[in-house]
């Protein structure tokens, strides 16, 4: 008989099987993986190799050897699965519902692209394998490059940049290289005040000085202001078109002419390419350099914050400066290869460790091929239609600072709600979660007070738009009825409620080990 005084096994570690953090069952926090750790647990298993088990002491000299293992955590596969499955239940995503996060193009990401990214023939290829053994990948990259050039009206592209900001910096280095090749040293790059924050940051990293031009009352570049800063120290201008207000820069031809006149180049921030696919091309607007956010326009999913892909396409005169090596067509050579790597004569050099975020690039090509040329245009049309519908539908309930036809997104404002009831854009955003929608982008662009930037994307149906509009309308009404304090209490139903961001920055806990 067991001794009645025996205590139950004392154990360290949190109970992995307790599922109280999944919103399905409850509202507690999920412990960190480290808290599930218990000495001696493990999940790993490796293959049988038949390789002699030489002692570690004989493999690594003492001065290099660590004295204690890195403490990662010790968990069973079961607890590992439970932990990350529960975490996934604490995460909103496009697959759960609409995600009208402006400037981020959170459209539906076809599952077929996940299959593509997992194909053994693509995913299993070592990046340093010679071109002769990676002809499929080179063909794929060349086809994507050619397609992107057709879509943007440019001459050639580099697929190396890993995201939009990386593309920007690449583009600015191209700008610099080009000017230098012209024997000209310039110091300034012009950026509208509506620009995304990565633009000025990239300009600085490109070794340029940022010159900001204000927007006019239409939300577009103020032409007079622009002209007043144009001189031969201007290397170029970075323009987002449609800009971050979702508006098309109508004076684009004049802007191009004016900048080119002083010898500057035009850089196109193509994060918002979704709006203009098949309708108008940066190349035709006079742009010299463009980066594209494939992870936005071409439905390569955003992965909770990345990865992305930010190819940069350029006009003819900039081709010799592109990063290298680049995948290029050759004839069919003696080993049967049709593609090879080549570095442009005046290349700015390498901007990615390998060839870019290649599996993201493969996804993007697959997406483009399914949609086709016809489908891409339709994407732009419906994206723009959806945004305008939202604008029109909500222009009574919210301020619309620039209430004219928009492109793929619309910037609303809670300015009046704030003035009248003290209810802020943030309150609207949080309350919207409870209505079953992700929040719009808030407080961006910086030039709009209490901005609520809505990008429905083309994959949301009219029914979803209607429901979103109704939710936003009723929230606006509620704001008036209930007032600031009540609104600030939301959300109530989410796994955590409003979090103390100030405390996070003040008492910084960037790792589990910094917990006190």
């Amino acid at each position: 008989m067991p001794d009645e005084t025996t205590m139950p096994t004392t154990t360290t570690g949190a109970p992995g099987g307790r599922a109280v953090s999944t919103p399905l069952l409850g509202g507690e926090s999920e412990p960190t993986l480290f808290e599930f750790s218990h000495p001696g647990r493990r999940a790993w298993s490796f293959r049988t190799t038949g390789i002699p088990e030489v002692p570690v002491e004989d493999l690594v000299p003492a001065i290099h050897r660590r004295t204690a293992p890195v403490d990662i955590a010790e968990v069973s596969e079961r607890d590992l699965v439970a932990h990350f499955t529960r975490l996934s239940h604490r995460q909103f995503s496009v697959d759960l519902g609409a995600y009208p996060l402006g400037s981020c193009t959170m459209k539906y990401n076809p599952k077929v692209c996940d299959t593509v990214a997992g194909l053994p023939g693509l995913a299993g290829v070592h990046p340093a394998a010679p071109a002769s053994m990676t002809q499929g990948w080179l063909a794929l990259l060349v086809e994507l490059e050619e397609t992107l050039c057709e879509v943007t009206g440019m001459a050639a592209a580099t697929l190396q940049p890993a995201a939009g900001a990386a593309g920007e910096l690449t583009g600015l280095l191209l700008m610099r290289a080009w000017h230098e090749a012209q024997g000209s040293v310039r110091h300034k790059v012009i950026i509208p005040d509506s620009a995304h924050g990565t633009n000025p940051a990239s300009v600085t990293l490109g070794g340029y000085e940022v010159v900001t031009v204000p927007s006019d009352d239409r939300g577009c570049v103020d032409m007079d202001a622009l002209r007043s800063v144009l001189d031969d120290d201007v290397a170029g201008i970075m323009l987002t078109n449609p800009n971050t207000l979702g508006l098309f820069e109508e004076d684009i031809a004049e802007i191009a002419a004016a900048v080119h006149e002083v010898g500057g180049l035009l850089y196109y921030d193509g994060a918002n390419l979704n709006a203009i696919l098949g309708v108008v091309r940066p190349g035709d607007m006079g742009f010299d350099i463009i980066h594209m956010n494939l992870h936005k326009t071409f439905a390569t999913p955003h992965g909770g914050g990345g990865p992305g892909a930010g190819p940069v396409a350029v006009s003819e005169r900039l081709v010799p400066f592109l990063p290298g090596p680049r995948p290029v067509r050759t004839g069919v050579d003696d080993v049967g290869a049709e593609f090879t790597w080549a570095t442009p004569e005046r290349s700015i050099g390498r901007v990615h460790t390998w060839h870019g975020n290649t599996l993201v690039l493969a996804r993007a090509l697959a997406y483009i091929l399914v949609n086709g040329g016809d489908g891409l245009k339709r994407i732009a049309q419906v994206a723009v239609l959806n945004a305008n519908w939202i604008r029109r539908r909500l222009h009574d309930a919210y301020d619309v600072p620039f209430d004219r036809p928009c492109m793929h997104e619309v910037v609303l404002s809670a300015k009046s709600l704030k003035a009248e009831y003290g209810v802020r854009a943030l309150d609207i955003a949080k309350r919207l979660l409870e209505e079953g929608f992700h929040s719009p982008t808030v407080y961006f662009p910086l030039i709009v007070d209490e901005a609520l930037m809505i990008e429905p994307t083309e994959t949301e149906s009219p029914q979803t738009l209607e429901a979103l509009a109704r939710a936003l309308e009723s929230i606006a009404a509620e704001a008036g009825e209930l007032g600031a304090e009540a609104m600030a209490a939301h959300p109530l139903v989410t796994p955590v409620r409003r979090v103390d961001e100030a405390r996070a920055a003040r008492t910084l806990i960037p790792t589990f080990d910094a917990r006190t």
Partner: protein
Amino acid sequence: MGTYIPHTDDELAGMLAFLGLSSMDELFAVVPEAVKLQHDLELADGVGEPDVLAQMESFGGRNRARNDRLVCFAGGGAYDHEIPSVTQALAGRSEFVTSYTPYQPEVAQGVLQAVFEFQTMVARIAGLPVSNASLYDGGSSAVEGVNLGVAATGRQTVWVSEGIHPHWRQMLATFAVGTGHRIVTVPLVDGVTAWPDGPDGGDESPGVVLVGYPNYLGCLEDLSTVRTLCDRTGALMVVGADPLAAGLLRSAGNWGADVMVGEGQVFGTSLGFGGPYLGLFACSSAHLRRLPGRLVGETVDVEDRVAYVTTLRAREQDIRREKATSNVCTNQTLMAVTAAVQLGWLGTSGLVEVATRCARATRYARDAVLAIDGVTPWADAPVLREFAVRLPRPADQVIERMADAGFLAGISLEGAVDGGGHGLLIAATERRTADQIDAYAAALAKAVA
């Protein structure tokens, strides 16, 4: 034919009518006619998903160097490690895949907490207190590490060991044009960096010293000399470390590094022809406010429940714009989540195990390869899961021949080090069996004959 747009024609017409428009084209009335595209894109029309899948498979079919066709002995910063089903299943969950930057923490605790755990793991591996939420890849981490070091010391001279991956060095050169850094390459001698005596301060003195651990040739360098050098010059010590090697090796922090940068592909990310990979970045607390990229911190919600949120946002480009610590916005979060899962799977003992298994396979492979007539070691320094040899023939030629025998033999050192054309860099991970290595050595003996 393919489309993911739900709208029917009726619905489109209804919506246009609501806007007072009669055609889709009118939506673009604001676009000046002069710049509008006057023809259709010269691209094929859309096709069915199965057609596209078949085409993508055919691209894959044309890649001979797939690790299901050629047994992979190539490394050079991208390794053929075990990726268990459980990592793929968890990291592939659609909530992680189809969400974006966690701007609304109330509904993003999943990604935020996973990244917090990732940061903790990376910091522990680095032996440094702070890690960020990921950068693009190893090379971009190196660039950011150098940028941080220059900003911290105010000195633009950067000493880079020739043992740093040649592609990283190329990237440093590319970006230095914008930042104005002076990159000085310090050569390898016998596989380890031959640090110069050089200036002890002033402008000529390095603001940053960057060294690989193990280095590109797989060699382990004694980093105490680097620490001493940095102490003497006031430079920041940045170590480009292989995070998997941390299963056996001393951490960057333990050697006294200020910053660790590294490539995180080894933790659950497929070879994928080079991307998306995962840039690791960790540093000492002193440099916290210069940390590039995103940072997740722990806090509480209004009900005092533990919660996570992106923090120190003021460093980031969306707030500080041209004064930001870096321009990185979209990063590699999914790979960070993947690494957290994979590291959770490995755990404390698994990280030791995988590093040990690599070291054993490498030792076994090195012994077998060096037994071949005419093949000699490139250097004598100790190695972990990769080593370089000198071949009696050009490496490129040998690599082609080895493919016929079923192997991706390694990476030619052409361009990477002086006289590298006859050099071959060979990696053996825990996935390599004794049989494979024996067959490899036998084939290599023929290929170099």
